[in-house]
């Protein structure tokens, strides 16, 4: 070959080989050296987090399966602004339907944001109507809204859930984590409209709804308790009140009613109010229990072996404890009295005498065993511990506290702590943890049942039975207003002064009654607490009567036969 063509051929070959080397080098740079960078970039453009439809929050039911808190479907009207074909037409259609000016809709649709929410929530019917219009770029997304089909019923127990799906107060607040649905999000390929492209099979891990809760509450008992509370507040002109109904054998709360209450579905109505009614007074507000606490003083003395119901003492109308002169509420002297009379006549001097016989060590050990001074441990949000000063707290505790505490003054409890303490007596001296959740139903259907938890053996079963008999005499001889025809019931009144800065309020009292029955096999315990009743300041004239009416109805509703029928069955 001639020299000229050969040189040209070599030149072309060299150029081509050089070009190939450059291309290969570039390919190696892109595909090998910068592999991870380009891979991530590509995935970033193509793969986006895809949120799978959010499942509902767990349903709350009463013990018989009735829904107390469920989920309704509402809709959110949204727009992908880049895909709105005809802004004028869309605004003209949506404005009248959503009852907002079309100009406002137009402004939203012309916004530079890629996504705008036009209105949320709207009813499902309206959402369906808008979806049926088939407006390009307009989307109707379903969303869950918490619904309380029973309205105000048991509002304090249930609490409420806000628009973001966060629970507050009551069971909604306490079990928020359990009730919340699982949120599942996965990375996957999306198209230009950010819709999932199904060219890869999605992981079959569907988000699960929140766990369902079955409460110990009975909606019928709850409704009757609320009805009785409303009647009592009106009849005795009280400012508010609380009624708790419990099963003393299990410490299951059957009803928990407080006034004032609210509709959890309309909690936003109270925005801006100074006094919000959301806190449950039964667990979040403390009060001085007054004479109901005498039951515990007598229980302690009996259990410590320092007295029997027949033990006598001389009541001169007053007693001095720690330099403080303590008198009976009636300001009278009763002479020789038995320990049983202390409860029947509700004698402050008698309980103060018993407390001094026991001494602070024994007395406060029993009060703590009955659950005073610490939260009862109920599964409701916002429970407080109450207040029990102990001799160890030498800066605040005074010797006279021993005397005043013995009849329920100078210490503070929540209504739930008080009913739990008396329920301990009804339950042979064993204090369990009060609870409102009976069962938990996981999203896969697994049911976990609440197991009763023993908190303490406050007094012996023998002491408890002796005390119950004395408490029956309290109702039969001391507070006939609380008697329930056909049933033996035990109980104790409490008319407590209300502490204010610098002393006690001379105007109002807190009237309460805790009673249980039928004796000797108590199946119900009821606490009635009325705040500042005006028709009478005495619990025997107010709370005791409320107890009788409610107990009489509940015995029938719960199918508890009268004593005569039960005894006859027992004999057979």
């Amino acid at each position, binding site marked *: 070959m001639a020299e000229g*063509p050969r040189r040209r*051929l070599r030149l072309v070959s060299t150029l081509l080989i050089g070009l190939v080397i450059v291309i290969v080098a570039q390919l190696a740079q892109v595909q090998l050296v910068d592999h991870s960078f380009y891979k991530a970039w590509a995935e970033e453009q193509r793969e986006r987090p895809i949120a799978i439809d959010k499942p509902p929050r767990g349903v709350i039911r009463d013990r018989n399966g009735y829904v107390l808190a*469920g989920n309704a479907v509402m809709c959110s009207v949204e727009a992908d602004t880049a895909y709105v074909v005809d802004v004028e037409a869309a605004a003209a259609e949506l404005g009248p339907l959503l009852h907002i000016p079309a100009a406002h809709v137009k402004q939203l649709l012309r916004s530079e944001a890629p996504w705008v929410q036009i209105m949320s929530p709207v009813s499902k019917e309206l959402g369906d109507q808008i979806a049926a219009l088939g407006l390009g770029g307009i989307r109707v997304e379903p969303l869950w809204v918490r619904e309380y089909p029973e309205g105000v*019923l048991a509002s304090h127990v249930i609490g409420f859930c806000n628009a973001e799906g966060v629970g507050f107060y009551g069971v909604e607040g306490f079990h928020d984590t359990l009730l919340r649905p699982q949120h599942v999000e996965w990375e996957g390929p999306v198209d230009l409209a950010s819709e999932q492209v199904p*060219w890869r099979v999605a992981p079959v891990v*569907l988000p699960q709804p929140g766990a369902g809760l079955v409460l110990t509450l009975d*909606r019928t008992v709850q409704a009757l308790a609320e009805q009785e509370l409303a009647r009592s507040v009106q009849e005795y002109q009280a400012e508010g009140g609380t009624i708790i109904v419990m099963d003393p054998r299990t410490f299951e709360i059957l009803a928990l009613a407080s006034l004032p209450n609210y509709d959890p579905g309309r909690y936003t109505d109270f925005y801006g109010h100074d006094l919000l009614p959301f806190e449950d007074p039964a667990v979040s507000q403390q009060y001085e229990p007054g004479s109901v606490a005498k039951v515990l003083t007598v229980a302690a003395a009996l259990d410590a072996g320092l007295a029997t119901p027949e033990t006598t003492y001389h009541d001169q109308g007053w007693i001095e404890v720690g330099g403080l002169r303590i008198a009976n509420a009636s300001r009278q002297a009763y002479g020789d009295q038995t320990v049983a009379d202390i409860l029947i006549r509700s004698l402050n001097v008698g309980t103060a005498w018993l407390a001094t016989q026991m001494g602070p060590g024994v007395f406060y050990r029993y009060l703590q065993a009955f659950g005073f001074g610490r939260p009862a441990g109920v599964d409701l949000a916002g429970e407080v511990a109450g207040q029990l000063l102990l001799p160890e707290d030498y800066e605040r505790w005074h010797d006279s506290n021993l005397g005043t505490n013995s009849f329920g003054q100078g210490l503070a409890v929540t209504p739930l702590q008080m009913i739990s303490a008396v329920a301990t007596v009804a339950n042979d001296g064993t204090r369990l943890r009060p609870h409102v959740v009976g069962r938990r139903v996981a999203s896969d259907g697994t049911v976990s049942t609440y197991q009763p938890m023993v908190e303490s053996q406050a007094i012996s079963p023998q002491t408890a039975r002796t005390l119950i008999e004395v408490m029956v005499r309290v109702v039969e001889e001391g507070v006939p207003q609380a008697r329930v025809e056909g049933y033996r019931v035990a109980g104790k009144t409490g008319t407590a002064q209300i502490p204010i800065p610098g002393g006690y309020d001379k105007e109002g009292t807190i009237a309460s009654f805790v009673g249980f029955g039928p004796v000797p096999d108590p199946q119900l315990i009821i606490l009635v607490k009325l705040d500042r009743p005006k028709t009478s300041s005495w619990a025997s004239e107010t709370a005791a009567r409320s107890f009788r009416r409610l107990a009489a109805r509940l015995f029938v509703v719960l199918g508890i036969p009268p004593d005569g*029928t039960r005894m006859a069955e027992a004999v057979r």
Partner: protein
Amino acid sequence: MSDFMQWVTHGIKRGRFEVSPRLALRLFALVVVLTVMAALYLMLVSRTAARGRHIQQLEAELFRLRRENEQLEVEIASEGSISHIWERAIELGFAPAEDVEFLRPVAGEP
């Protein structure tokens, strides 16, 4: 042929490219295998996409049914709420039970 191309190809000697039947068969087999593999891959991808779409539809249906179910449950609960029942009971003339008598079945008697 343009002057440039002629300049480029001037020095290339035309040769005879002879392919043996054996080599041709191997090349053909390779093409067939590659085609089959490509077809299988396409089939697999399209089937996966179809399955993915089907699963998406089933999920959407599941969520729709779940929503309807929850909605119905809440509506039923509202209709059967205590306040509703109370109103209906009063309308129908029911009254709270009073003086309830508990009957004791006696063994042996009907």
